[in-house]
């Protein structure tokens, strides 16, 4: 009874620990390479930045039992058609601004962040912007002066003034429009877009 059985010995578990860790990590690296290659801007799941020139919707597909982004005809942003590079620059400005203004510590982006303000994943498609025609202008005005264009839905929670310039506001809107076209595996579920109500 003095012999320690293999399954209870230190060296056995040491080897297991090393192999399990190394194995899991190798699988993660392989999956990472695959996932990143399938989600570059311009892939099927994550459209090219020039998608901001198009009409975007998010529709429930009964067969898949989830909603999917639907990319339609031309629908220029701020009345301008952007080349892929121009679009990338504008989205980049917007994305960077969402970081430097710390949006994520009130809002969620793709569902991650803080829970004090609504999710931004499909903000471009939200019915809160009333109609497709009014949307762009409302958004610019709101972002530049949220206190006086407050959209509190009866909650008294107002977004603060974050000193967002007009160019930054346009960038943010381009970023939101591009993000709304990403295939998020059906999150959020059963979302009714601004297009659906018209």
């Amino acid at each position, binding site marked *: 009874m003095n012999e320690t059985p293999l399954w209870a010995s230190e060296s056995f578990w040491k080897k*297991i620990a090393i192999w399990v860790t190394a194995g899991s990590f190798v699988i993660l690296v392989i999956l990472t390479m695959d996932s990143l290659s399938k989600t570059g801007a311009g892939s099927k799941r994550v459209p090219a930045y020039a998608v901001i020139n198009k009409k975007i919707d998010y529709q429930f597909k009964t067969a898949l039992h989830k909603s999917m982004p639907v990319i339609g005809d031309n629908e220029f942003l701020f009345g301008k058609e952007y080349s892929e590079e121009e679009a990338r620059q504008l989205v980049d400005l917007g994305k960077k601004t969402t970081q430097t203004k710390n949006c994520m510590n009130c809002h969620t982006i793709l569902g991650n962040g803080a829970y004090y303000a609504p999710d931004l994943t499909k903000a471009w498609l939200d019915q809160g912007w009333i109609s497709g025609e009014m949307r762009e202008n409302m958004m610019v005005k709101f972002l530049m002066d949220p206190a006086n264009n407050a959209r509190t839905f009866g909650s008294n929670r107002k977004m603060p003034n974050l000193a967002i310039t007009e160019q930054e506001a346009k960038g943010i809107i381009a970023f939101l429009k591009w993000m709304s076209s*990403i295939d998020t595996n059906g999150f959020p579920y059963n979302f009714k877009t601004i297009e659906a109500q018209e």
Partner: protein
Amino acid sequence: MNTSDLNGIIPKSNRLLDKARTYLDDFKAWVNLDSSNLSTGQQLAVKYFTVAVILFFAQLLFGMLAAIQFIYPGFLYEILDFNVNRMVHINAMIVWMLYGFIGSIYWLIEDESGTGIVGLKWANIAFWVLTGAVTLVVLVYLFIQIGPGKDSSLWFINEGREYIEAPRWADLGITAVMLVFFYNVVATFSKGQWSGIGGVLVLDLIALVGLYLAGMFYMTNITHEQYWWWWVIHLWVEATWEVLVGVIMAWSLMKLLGVRRKIVQTWLYIEVALMFGSGILGLGHHYFWIGMPEYWLSVGGFFSALEPIPLVAMVVHAVYDAGVHAFKTVNHPALAWVVAHAFGNFFGAGVWGFMHTLPQINMYTHGTQWSASHGHLSFFGAYATINIAFFYLAIQQWRGGVWMAAGAHHAWRWKWALGLLNAGVVGMTIALLIAGYEQSFIERAVEGSTWGGYFAAQNEPSFQRAMGWRLLFGGITLAGFILLVWDLLTIGKGETRKIPTINQS
């Protein structure tokens, strides 16, 4: 300003400094701790612990401000907005826990390797550099807050990415300090002797520091950016931090209870295998909805569902050992917090994590107060508790190795601090859970997650009541913290009985 004004200011500020110095001296005399009870490595460790406690206080304070804003949105509006308070709340948490871990490791490696810390001078410089950097980062958070949408803002103000907001200059500084720390650990074990605990510790630290680098880059593609961001957050708290805590626990169980080395080391390897085996691919539970391929729904769901298993193993290990040794220990508060850790880790991470980790459920709970409920119980239960346990070990030594078990004076203080802190966090967790269910139902399931749906859920009386309860229990948490600090400063004062040495059995 003319020079005569200046002439008036200098003596005035001198007088103020003198006054501050007298207060500090009075405070030190009252606390009456003798640092000659500590080795030089331990003296460094307690510096880390001191800053950790101060940042813990900052965490709770700014959490309270943010919680008040949920009820009175006008509170500090455009002065300290919610995003600023929340950022300080969670950053202070990450940083105080890292300070606690670093301090614990400096503390235990001397004992574990059997020699003094190698490169202590560098370690001390690194401490002051890190603390200076943290102070500067917090001041910028509070007084500059945000910047224009340019790279310079990411470099000098904040990176705007939850949990790792620190600007890039600080990222580089933190990495440099971590390299010094890493050098200390490796060189100390190399000079003294290696052990199973030492080996796991070093490999884990390589992973921990390496992962931090994954979070330093800016990307336009939000899907890729969040992919790497989770490498830091998830692979820290659900892999490398868990293992680090396993190391600290293994060492503490030997010290507190006299458990045999062979037993704790075997358990440590089992924990590493189970934790990394489930936690590394469990990362996938954050990839369900960020644009990543569908296979993550299966991979993430499956492996993350296994993550509670190592946490069960850890509870069994700690409680079994405590039972075998009949809870005989010379430090009651430390053992109590170790037990709180084992259960907190199991419930906060294991149970609360499991409840929303399958994609079919996460579809509705994702990004609601449900996550916050889990976040509070897990970070507190898994990591705040073990750090507090270590604070008690440290203070015992600092007092000169006095008795802190049965019949110790003023034991009500640590007991009440333990009770209030745990009751406070559990209370907040339950309040947030109720709010989370309500949000999942009204906002996600019924309203389809529109902005209107979001606010409909926020305006529900049951949600608002939950926010009130959260604030109340936050206050209880804060009260427990204040009592904890008082106890840490006074416990063992005037105690003359020394601890007998513990033999491993």
